[in-house]
Structures are given as structure tokens and as C-alpha cells.
């Protein structure tokens, strides 16, 4: 039986990289969104197969689930090279849409599938003479045919095309025509619609559809960043590029046209973080965007920034390791590398945004935290958040908000005779005052070095002042707990014995998994951790439950280790649930794993009770 489903299915486009399909794919997703139906989309682009196949997955979810679902109901198979695998991956009773211009042997199909052949190339070759145009229009034609078979509103697609080519009337007309050709052919020659359909709904609301890296870079603009230093590295590159284009739009001086920002593409990540530290030391808000390999290169400098107490923001768009490993796949595997980055006793502030909305919010916040706490702050994105567009609540900004530059002594402060000791804990919160270079002719200057100095930044190698300073840094880290975003709890009605802790991009599938599990009778309280150091509620949450599943996307249960290392819980309380094959974790995976674990824990408890 062919799958029948309205507003709940997965379409996967199998494309050849560079065929111009990306924009048509995105338009498909946006058309569904414009019909008021939520979608969750992701790019899959392995870097190690010749010919560079790419996939684009669109999960249509009327219920609004935004995590990956797994499985494909409708395959749009446009890449002969991956045909066999693509066909094999379709769910039983699914649909196969393909270009039937050239015959494909019957053995290449599956009997349970509904096959939808459209002679796209043939029509294109007939309609268009120029090769590039053939290719581009083929994608639009394909979109037209898909709209017909899925019962989509063709006018919405037309509007999107008009918006995309705004001001270029000839292009609009040509695209509209291609769309109509595809749609008309499908309506005339195929059974339309198929069992999968998109019905207009109101499930999207005022949400926006945006990539996490773009959102984070916009957060940096709103956070007041003026210096960006970076070195290209997938999947972080588009973050720096996003900052560049937003700055061009938003940060030009109205009269002179000059730039209220500086972006330096450095020679490597050592230089990137060096530039950020130099700028932060001198009172600019500065950041870098990188991924695991870059974080590795920055280690020495990160320790210096920690000890010398220099504000710095790092966006780490995580991927699998090592340098050549899984560069285009997602993971949450840099948690420990960032939390304890560098040599010596160091600890750093981490923020875990769940999606582009929080990437924007935390992106802006990170600069306040870095200034307030005078230390590096890591915004822990991952490829799943960063390089995919997601539906997210619209960005919000309060115009009365001001940058919090933290404790900075001004000329007037110094002139008034206020005591200045660069590393003096005047307020008991571990956060000292600093001065910007050039502030006062005779007061407030200091020599910045690692730890061989006293509270007044005078050189000393004595053990006493060293220990005092290290203790103050711990106090500062305590202070940070109240500043990082608080954890959020989704409590089961009536309470639960089991808890779940998760973070970052695991949020969307976790929400869906929670629903699945609760429907199955597995009661769970779910906490999403949003920052490190962990605040008291995290510890309390763990002690309030018999067992807590820590769901994360890495092999070594890194957040669990961090929870244990920071004395939030003992290991026997924390049960790891791990997914780390490079694909984003799905609700199905989480629900199955937790259901099984919960069952075996219950069974063991019963056995224990009997014996």
C-alpha cells in the first residue's frame, strides 16, 4: 500500500552538487512554510565522494517537529550516481520521483514504490537552447511538477520566484513559465495528487526560516562586535561570511560610508585568536568563528586569555573530528575540549544554543558575558544548527538594552583617585576592574602577563599571590553561574523518577522523543542545559531523580563527564544516551534508547526488590 499522509512526510532530494538545485530545493521548503506547514530541513553533503552528490531533506511536519525524523517517503532522485542507494533508502510503500528522459532498467526500481517519472531533460532540451538555462529551468520545472503531485499551492511558489528575482522581470517571467510547464505536464500525465499531500495550515505562525550561522553572525552584530578574525573552516565559514554581509548592510557610516567594523581573514587560527585577544584587551568586542581543528590550534592562547582575563568570543560550529574527519557531519564532541581548553588549570564559559533563534540571542549575549566576566566565552553551535535553515521564533531586540562593558575604570575614575589593581577583587565576586590602554597619563596602566604577578599586576613569582589569584578565578567562575542562560525544565505532569538532560541541537528531537515516550507511558522530566558553568538547579534536578539520561551527540558522553567533574552528580546517577554517527540524532533513536534503558532499569529495580 502506498503511504498516505497529509502534512507529515519526508522528502529527500538527491542532487549533483553545482547543478543549481540548492535554491530550487530551498524554494520547495519555503513554499511549504508559506502554506503554513512547518518543515525541518537539512543539507547532507559528504566531502569524500567524487562527483560531490548532495542531499536536501525536507521533513514536512504539521505537528511542528523540527528534528530529523529518519527515513524518506518521497525520493526526488536526480543523481544517477547515488540512485541505487537512494532507491533502497525509501520507506516501504514510498514514492520515487525521477527524470524519465532516459530509460532506466526495471531492475533498478522497487515493486513496493510508486514511481513518478517526468521527462524533465527532454522537455528542457525542447524548450531551451542554452545549456546553463536548461539546467536551471529544469530545477524549476521539477518544482512545478512536485507542486502538482503534492497538491501544493502553485501561486505561492510563483510569489516566491517573483520575490527572489525582484526587479528582474524577464527572469521572473522565464521562471514562472518553467514552473507552469512542469506543473502542467504533471497534471496532464500523472495521477495528481499522490498519497502525500501538503494542506494549508496555520502551524508556522510568525516564525522565520534561517541558518544558525547567519543567525549567530547577526547576534554578533547586535552584540556590538567590531572585530572579527577568522580562518576558513567548514562548518564555521558561513558565520564569518554572514558577519561580513550583515556588517556591509548595517554597519556602514551613514555619511562617510566607512566601516564601523574590521574583519580580518587571518593566516591561521592561532592568529585569529591572537587578533581577538589583542582587540579584546584594547576594548573592542571581538570574536572568531571556527570548529574543532581551529579550537585545537588556539589552545595556548586560550589559556593566556583565561589567566590574563581578556574578553573573547568564540563561535565553535562543531563537527566530527579530527582535522580530516567528518568535516561535513554534525557532532557535539568539543564540549570538554572547550570547557577545559589550554594548559594549566583553566575553565571556560560555554553557551549551548538550541537553534538559530538562540544562536542569535546567545551570540549577542556572549559579548556582554565576555566583558562582564573578562574571559573567553564559547558559543557552542554545531553543523546541524549552523549550516541548516531552521524554523525559529523571530529575532527579538529591546531597544532600551545597552552593551554591558563590565568593570572598566575610566579616566574620571582614575583621576578621582580610586584605587586600581588590575587583579584586585574589590567586590568579592572575583571580577576585577580593568582599564583600556591610553586612558590616563599616570594612572591605571598595567603590564599584562599570565600569572606571575600580584593583584596590582606587579611581577612576582611567589606562590602566595599565585594561589590567591587562582582562588579568585574560581570565585569568578562561581559568579558566572548566575550570568549564563539558566536551564529550562519540561516537567512531566505528576512528577517522574527519570530525568533527561540534553543541550544544543538535541533539543528538537528530544522534544519529540519526550512526547513519544510519554505517550508510551514513560514519564520523564526533561532539562535543557544552556550554559556552563552549571548553575545550582542542574545539581538539584539530578538529585531529584533516580536516574538521569544524558542525551548527547558524541561517543564519550562529554557533558556527562563535565557534570561529574564539576560535582553535580556521581556517575551511577547519569545514564549516557549517545548518538555520534555524524547524522543529527532523531526522536526515534532517542525514544527507543530511553524506552529500553528505562525498562531494564525498572526490571533491575524489581529484581532487587525481590531478592
Amino acid at each position, binding site marked *: 500500500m502506498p503511504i498516505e499522509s497529509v502534512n507529515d512526510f519526508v522528502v529527500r532530494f538527491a542532487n549533483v552538487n553545482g547543478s543549481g538545485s540548492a535554491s530550487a530545493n530551498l524554494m520547495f521548503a519555503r513554499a511549504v512554510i508559506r502554506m503554513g506547514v512547518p518543515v525541518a530541513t537539512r543539507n547532507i553533503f559528504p566531502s569524500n565522494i567524487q562527483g560531490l552528490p548532495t542531499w536536501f531533506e525536507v521533513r514536512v511536519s504539521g505537528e511542528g517537529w523540527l528534528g530529523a525524523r529518519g527515513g524518506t517517503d518521497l525520493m526526488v532522485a536526480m543523481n544517477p550516481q547515488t540512485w541505487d542507494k537512494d532507491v533502497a533508502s525509501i520507506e516501504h510503500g514510498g514514492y520515487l520521483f525521477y527524470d524519465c528522459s532516459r530509460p532506466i532498467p526495471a531492475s533498478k526500481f522497487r515493486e513496493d514504490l510508486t514511481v513518478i517519472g517526468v521527462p524533465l531533460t527532454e522537455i528542457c532540451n525542447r524548450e531551451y537552447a542554452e545549456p546553463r538555462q536548461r539546467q536551471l529551468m529544469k530545477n524549476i520545472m521539477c518544482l512545478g511538477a512536485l507542486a502538482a503531485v503534492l497538491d501544493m499551492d502553485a501561486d505561492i511558489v510563483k510569489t516566491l520566484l517573483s520575490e527572489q528575482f525582484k526587479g528582474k522581470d524577464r527572469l521572473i517571467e522565464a521562471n514562472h513559465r518553467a514552473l507552469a510547464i512542469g506543473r502542467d505536464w504533471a497534471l496532464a500525465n500523472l495521477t495528481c495528487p499522490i498519497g502525500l499531500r501538503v494542506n494549508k495550515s496555520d502551524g508556522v505562525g510568525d516564525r522565520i526560516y534561517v541558518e544558525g550561522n547567519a543567525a549567530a553572525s547577526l547576534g554578533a552584530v547586535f552584540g556590538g562586535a567590531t572585530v572579527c578574525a577568522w580562518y576558513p573552516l567548514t562548518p564555521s565559514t558561513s558565520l564569518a561570511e554572514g558577519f561580513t554581509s550583515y556588517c556591509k548592510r548595517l554597519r556602514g557610516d551613514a555619511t562617510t560610508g566607512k566601516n564601523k567594523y574590521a574583519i580580518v581573514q587571518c593566516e591561521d587560527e592561532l592568529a585569529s585568536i591572537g587578533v581577538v585577544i589583542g582587540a579584546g584587551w584594547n576594548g573592542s568586542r571581538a570574536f572568531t568563528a571556527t570548529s574543532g581543528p581551529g579550537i585545537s590550534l588556539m589552545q595556548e592562547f586560550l589559556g593566556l586569555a583565561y589567566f590574563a582575563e581578556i574578553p573573547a568570543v568564540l563561535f565553535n560550529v562543531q563537527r566530527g573530528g579530527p582535522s580530516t574527519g567528518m568535516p561535513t557531519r554534525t557532532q557535539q564532541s568539543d564540549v570538554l575540549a572547550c570547557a577545559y581548553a589550554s594548559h594549566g588549570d583553566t575553565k571556560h564559559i560555554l553557551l549551548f544554543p538550541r537553534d538559530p533563534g538562540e544562536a542569535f540571542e546567545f551570540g549577542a549575549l556572549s559579548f556582554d558575558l565576555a566583558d562582564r566576566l573578562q574571559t573567553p566565552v564559547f558559543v557552542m553551535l554545531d553543523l546541524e544548527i549552523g549550516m541548516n535553515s531552521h524554523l525559529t521564533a523571530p529575532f527579538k531586540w529591546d531597544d532600551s538594552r545597552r552593551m554591558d562593558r563590565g568593570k572598566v575604570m575610566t579616566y574620571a575614575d582614575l583621576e578621582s583617585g580610586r584605587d586600581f589593581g588590575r587583579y584586585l577583587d574589590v567586590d568579592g565576586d572575583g571580577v576585577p576592574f580593568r582599564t583600556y*590602554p591610553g*586612558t590616563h597619563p599616570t594612572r591605571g596602566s*598595567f603590564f599584562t602577563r599570565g600569572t606571575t604577578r600580584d593583584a596590582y599586576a606587579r611581577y612576582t613569582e611567589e606562590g602566595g599571590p599565585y594561589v590567591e589569584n587562582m582562588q579568585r578565578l574560581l570565585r569568578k567562575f562561581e559568579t558566572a553561574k548566575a550570568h549564563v542562560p539558566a536551564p529550562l525544565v519540561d516537567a512531566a505532569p505528576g512528577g517522574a523518577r527519570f530525568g533527561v538532560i540534553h543541550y544544543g541541537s538535541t533539543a528538537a528531537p528530544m522534544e519529540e522523543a519526550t512526547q513519544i515516550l510519554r505517550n508510551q507511558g514513560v514519564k520523564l522530566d526533561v532539562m535543557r542545559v544552556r550554559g556552563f558553568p552549571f548553575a545550582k538547579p542542574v545539581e538539584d534536578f539530578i538529585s531529584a531523580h533516580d536516574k538521569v539520561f544524558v542525551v548527547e551527540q558524541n561517543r564519550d558522553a562529554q557533558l556527562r563527564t563535565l557534570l561529574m567533574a564539576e560535582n553535580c552528580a556521581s556517575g551511577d546517577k547519569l545514564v549516557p544516551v549517545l548518538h555520534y554517527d555524524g547524522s543529527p540524532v532523531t526522536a526515534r533513536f532517542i525514544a527507543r534508547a530511553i524506552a529500553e534503558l528505562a525498562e531494564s532499569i525498572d526490571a533491575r529495580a524489581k529484581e532487587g526488590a525481590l531478592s
Partner: protein
Amino acid sequence: MTYLPKPKFRHPAIEKNELGLTHRDYEGAISTLCAGCGHDSISSAIMHACFELDLPPHRIAKLSGIGCSSKTPTYFLGNAHGFNSVHGRMPSVLTGANLANKDLIYLGVSGDGDSASIGFGQFAHAIRRGVNMVYIVANNGVYGLTKGQFSATADKGATLKKGAANPDDPIDLVMMALHLGASFVARSFSGDKGQLVPLIKAAVEHKGPAFIDCISPCVAFNNHDGSTKSFDYVRAHNEAVNALDFISERAPITTDYAPGEMQLVKLHDGSTIRLRKIGADYDVHDRVAAINYLMKHDVAGEIVTGLVYVEEDPGDMHDRLQTVDTPLNQLGDADLIPGAAALAKINASLR
């Protein structure tokens, strides 16, 4: 090495500059380097130059890497902010600092190990990026702080104190700087204050990357026979291309020279360097000729010192980046935060 506390007494007739500051106002903490170390002479030349230029010390930012040479910023300009960063990475930290506030003077102090070995990449990239700075390498051919191993500027065949000869070719940082596009390139010798002070003054007034390779003998590990960075060796092989007088924009030019003997070089701020040519026909504005000249003399075993090259109309990193005139670190909320209305437009474009 002197551990004596500084006397507090000040002579009433003590010399003051235009700002009413004395030499003491340009000093820093007492040096802990070996007595006689060349690096201390560089510190003293820096203090002299800043005093004579009437610079307010707090408007200078002094940055360094790690090494004996990189320790020196503690020993001069106590009222300036300083930054002892990590080994070989001063150039990136200085670049960032400069991006944040274009109005300060940036003085980078490094060693030959710091800049020609571990930090060779950052040295190169800060220069090619056109950072407005004075970049001084105190070049002693060894790693002083780690007790005398060869650095990458040690000449082939030069020997360590215990006799081991250096098998590898040296890196000439002056040559590198010329190739990389530095707009002010000089070499000097810590033992020649008369040459070094005006060079530093000119470098400070110059806009863009000003590089000074200053040979600075390590008396503890590299001042013996067999070293090519010893006081005696450098004195014997020093081949100055010119002699400099730095003339501030205020001072009239008085001394007369025969035509052709003197070249006047205008600097960014309107001041002038008066170059008394020693090498005949040496044109300080000709990069290619400078490279040729250096190579020829290098083969002859001579160490060329003096102002090797200066660009007539240099720009800097901020010109290239087209940054606003106000230093970036002084821009406030109104300048930087686009606000809710702009955000609403962006939201609308993402639906």
C-alpha cells in the same frame, strides 16, 4: 644587572621635553637582564626616542612575545599599557589591538627566536597586512631565555660558546620585510645609539609597518669569537648605508650639506628625516635596489645597517579596511546596534 632601588631624588635642572616630562617619566621597572645585554640598550634607545618625540607615554601600547627581548617592555615606559603575550604571537595580538584603537602608537618588541622561528608566520602576515606599528626584533642569533640555542637568524658556520657550528642557512628578517611589503625597513645595532635613536623616532612617525632588525648581542651566550652577533664582530663588519638625523616638524633644518650628499625624507606627520648618504647612489625609496644592495653586501660578509627602505606614501591596514575615523573601541550602542526596527526588516525577509 642592577638590583639597586632607583633614587627618588630629582635634580631641579633636569632636562624636560615639550610635555614637561623628564627622562624618568619614560622609564619602566628596573631591568633584570644580564649586565651588558644588548637588549637594555634598545630599551634605553626607545626611551630616548619617545622622550625626544615628546610622546605621552600612555598613548603607546607595548607588546611582546616571549624571550629575554620580549621581557624588555617592562623596563621602559611604565605609564604605558604592556602585553607580554605568547611565544611568537605578538604580531597577531598587536594587530588586534591596533584594530581596536587606531589612535595609539603600537610598539612590538620581539626576539629573533620569537619572530624568525616560532613566530615567522605571524611576523610575515602582520607586515603584509600593513599594520601601523614599530616592530623591533632584538636579534642576537640565539634563544637567550632558554640558554643559548641557535635561532633561525644565526649565520651558517657561526659557533656556539661550546663550539658547535650552525649547519643551517640564516633567515635575514630585513630581506624578508622588504619582500613582504614593509613600508619602513631598517637595521641597526644596539651598540650604536646614534643610529638607533633616530631610526626609532622615524619608525614611530612612519605610518604603516616599520620594521627594525636590531642586532643585540647576548653577552651570556653569543658574544664569543666564532659568533657573528657579537659586539666585536658587528663593529668590524658594520656597513652603514646612511646616517640619520630625525628632524621634528617644528625644528628648522640648519646644517648645510653638499648637494647629493643628503636626502630629505618626509614622514607621515610632516616631520622629516635627514639622511646623510654614505653608500653612494643609495636611494632609500627603491625597494628593488635595496634588496640587491643587501644581497651584495651579505655575500661580502658585511652587515648593512641604517634606513634601508622607506615608502613615500604608505597606507596602513585601517586604510585597506576602510574603518571609520573614530577608534572602534570608542563606538557606542548608537553606532553599533542596528536596533529593533532593522531586525524586524530582517525577520520579514526570512519568512
